[in-house]
């Protein structure tokens, strides 16, 4: 089901982030579910919640918050609006037990490396975990 998500929602993408690896992931998802989608974690800020606080909450939801902060350049962030502006849509897999913060981004029909670059290009440089 296509998801409505606020434009200012925080989106986290962990590695892999290389174009070819992201495309390979989308191709595997096609094999599994019949659509070329890649996974991200996302959520909107609650009242008074900072971007960094949402990041921390998403890391907790992903169960990857334990990574060494000093070495943790393992994820990249953007806003939902940045992906929407590039023509991408957010989807929930609608599988039992799907994490509320987990979304799939549809890369379209038979995506190319250019499509993947457009997706990856929305994300900023690698982030450290908030202290």
């Amino acid at each position, binding site marked *: 089901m296509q998801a409505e998500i606020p434009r200012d929602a925080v989106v986290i*993408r*962990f*590695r*892999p*982030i*290389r174009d070819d*690896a992201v495309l390979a*992931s989308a191709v*595997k*998802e096609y*094999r*599994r579910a019949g659509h070329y989608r*890649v*996974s*991200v*974690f996302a959520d909107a800020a609650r009242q008074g919640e900072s971007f960094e606080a949402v990041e921390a909450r998403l890391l907790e939801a*992903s*169960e*990857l918050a*334990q*990574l*060494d902060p000093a*070495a943790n350049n*393992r994820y990249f962030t953007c806003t939902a609006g940045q992906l929407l502006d590039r023509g991408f849509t957010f989807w929930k*897999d609608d*599988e*039992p*037990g*799907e*994490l509320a913060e*987990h979304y799939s981004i549809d890369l379209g029909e038979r995506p190319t490396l250019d499509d993947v670059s457009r997706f990856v290009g929305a994300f900023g440089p690698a982030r450290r975990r908030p202290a």
Partner: protein
Amino acid sequence: MTARVAIDLNVRVRGDQTYAGLEDVQGTVVVGGHVEVYEPESGLTGPAEVTEVDRERRLVYLAVDWRKLHEPVRVPHPWLVVFRNQVWPWLKERGREIQSKLHAGSRHV
């Protein structure tokens, strides 16, 4: 030997599980078997259990212990160990000797 499976850290299916292609597997996977998962770009690694092998779609489903994923343990190259333990101390010692000789020479000028 424990099989290794390359995964995408973002993918979650069936709740908290993930999946990979059989082409991402090094070794043999069986349902209920324990494997080591890793993410190739970051090297993050950790334990997982195989929950299903879908031979038709060539996919393997995994229950990953996400909280146990950790940074890769880097084993230094043997030559680096030799350099660090033997060559570098020797160079430092020779450097000190040269410095003290230069210092002594400058006092006689």
